[in-house]
């Protein structure tokens, strides 16, 4: 660790992993409820468990991004963080607010939560992924602004690198676009239109900048390749991500009441969204092949390459599968979407956060460039268990989706939704058991942090 203040990243990473465990537990609950409908009913209804599953995902990724920023920005800027105290204070505020929100979801009916938190004063609740009470949303804005101030001041006062600028741009975009969660027009078409400005422009826009910056940072450290080369790649990748991603928002605008030209705009631009992800894959492998040193942290390299490949498959290929309007006409909102969602989130954002943790943790915890061999081996096992599981979850959901689309929408004698759900239950069972294996992989990952090695640690 080059700067003392980088240590503030540590609690963020711990919280991220803790919430990740929660997310997967709730994933297992809803996976079970898919096949045993009254499992845990009425204590934890499906809609609540699903909300917790998705909200925890977003919150822990945000913890991961913030931790990554606190670790990366001082090192890039070559100076201490502007205010480590502020970073720690924000950590606790964010954690407590997040925990209270989840407790609220689980403890009282959603309508009660809305009433108690004064949703009628400024109604923002009741929309997928943006279910948080309005006061929580305000808290997120405050935390995000203070966080941006903290790293912004660090960057302004220090060395300005492309990685820092791209990261700051991505994080600023994240904060600014979240403001649209407060815009909740009565008109349902407008509501959906702007809802996507948060949801789509996050994951297929500004988050890609954050991902690119983190990946570039880790690859520079792991491979020793010239910064200029990596920075140039980063420029081209983010330019492509924004060119395709921004107008690509149109692939959510088919048949929801928006003008017809969105079918063309959405199809054409989003069809090209795999390009930046493909470039990221080429970029990561090229850099590792041209490495100028053998970094002892093999696990981090695996996570980094895994990010590049899985992001391309999950976000790129599985996104493309159903992005064209004539295809989406049939697949809209089916299990195909769920398949894409699982692999894209895992491949792009879960893995990039773990890549950062894997790289930073030995520095934070042991003041060494890498964990011991056994810990790394466990990490790699957890990588393969989780990654293979998510591939199978995706394949099973894709199978379920294809059948669902055919039986319910394409066939000459379309069947009702619930009848189809019964017919494809086998896929849901397979998905559930694969989810259990994913959880085993996650447990192994957590265990790797505590694994003692035989060799003594080389100090950095």
């Amino acid at each position: 660790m080059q700067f003392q203040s980088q240590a503030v990243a540590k609690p963020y990473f711990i919280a991220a992993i803790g919430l990740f465990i929660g997310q997967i537990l709730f994933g297992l609950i809803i996976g079970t409820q898919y096949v045993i409908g009254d499992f845990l009913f009425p204590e934890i209804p499906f809609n609540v468990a699903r909300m917790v599953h998705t909200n925890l995902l977003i919150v822990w990724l945000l913890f991961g991004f913030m931790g990554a920023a606190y670790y990366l920005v001082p090192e890039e800027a070559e100076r201490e963080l502007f205010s480590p105290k502020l970073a720690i204070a924000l950590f606790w505020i964010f954690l407590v607010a997040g925990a209270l929100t989840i407790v609220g979801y689980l403890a009282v009916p959603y309508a009660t939560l809305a009433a108690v938190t004064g949703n009628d004063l400024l109604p923002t609740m009741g929309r997928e992924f943006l279910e948080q009470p309005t006061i929580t949303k305000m808290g997120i804005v405050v935390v995000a602004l203070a966080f941006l101030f903290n790293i912004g001041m660090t960057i302004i006062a220090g060395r300005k690198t492309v990685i820092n600028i791209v990261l700051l741009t991505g994080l600023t975009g994240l904060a600014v676009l979240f403001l649209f969660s407060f815009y909740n027009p009565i008109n349902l078409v407008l509501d959906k239109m702007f809802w996507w400005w948060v949801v789509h422009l996050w994951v297929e826009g500004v988050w890609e900048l954050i991902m690119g910056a983190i990946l570039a940072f880790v690859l520079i450290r792991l491979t020793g390749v010239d910064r200029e080369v990596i920075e140039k790649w980063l420029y081209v990748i983010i330019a492509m991500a924004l060119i395709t991603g921004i107008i690509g928002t149109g692939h959510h605008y088919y048949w929801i009441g928006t003008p017809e030209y969105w079918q063309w705009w959405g199809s054409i631009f989003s069809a090209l969204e795999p390009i930046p992800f493909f470039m990221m894959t080429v970029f990561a492998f090229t850099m590792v092949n041209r490495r100028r040193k053998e970094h002892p942290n093999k696990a981090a390299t695996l996570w980094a390459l895994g990010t590049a490949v899985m992001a391309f498959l999950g976000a790129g290929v599985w996104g493309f599968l159903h992005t064209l309007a004539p295809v989406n006409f049939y697949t809209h909102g089916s299990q195909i979407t769920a398949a894409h969602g699982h692999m894209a989130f895992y491949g792009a954002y879960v893995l990039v956060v773990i890549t950062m943790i894997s790289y930073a943790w030995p520095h934070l915890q042991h003041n060494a460039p890498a964990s011991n061999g056994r810990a790394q081996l466990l990490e790699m096992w957890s990588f393969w268990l989780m990654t293979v599981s998510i591939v199978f979850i995706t394949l099973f959901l894709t199978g379920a989706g294809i059948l669902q689309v055919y039986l319910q929408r394409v066939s000459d004698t379309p069947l009702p939704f619930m009848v189809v759900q019964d017919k494809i239950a086998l896929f849901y069972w397979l998905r559930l058991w694969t989810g259990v294996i994913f959880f085993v992989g996650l447990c192994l990952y957590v265990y790797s942090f505590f694994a003692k090695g035989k060799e003594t640690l080389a100090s950095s």
Partner: protein
Amino acid sequence: MDTPLHDDTGALPGDFAIWIFIFAELLVFGVFFLAYAFARANNVELFNESQLQLDRISGAANTLVLITSSYFVVRAVAAIRDDDSRRCVHWLAAAIGMGSVFLVIKMFEFADKFSAGISLSTNTFFMFYLSLTFFHFMHVILGMVILAAVLFKARSGGYSAASHIGVETGASYWHMVDLVWLILFPLVYVIH
């Protein structure tokens, strides 16, 4: 900044990164043109009929304007190869000037169409016409910004006969903008 991405950049002038960008841009336009072709194949009459409402004169004028601007850019590259920054700056300024002429002509054309009540939702042909030309319009602006950046650096003596990758980079991008129009104009305005 001038380090190429690969050691073997070969014959491609300018920075290799701009070529990745150019290929990506050409791919976007290529997909757009293909979509146009498919949509037209299903709707030949509508396309032919709507096409007659376009202003081919201003389209042709703009073609000449862009080709001329590309010539100016070529002269700018030639000038810096002769180590003549001043002439390079003049040619770049002339190219940017032609870019502005293109934008003005195009804006008159857009204004004419909008005042005739034509919009993205009028029909599929006009959806393509407006999308393609507007998308290209934005690229002309971006190209002008790039050329302006090159111009300012050239004016402060940032390039020489030995080192002028930046000028070639800007020129390559500008030629791409020109090339796209050379396909767009006959495809959308002329071919029946």
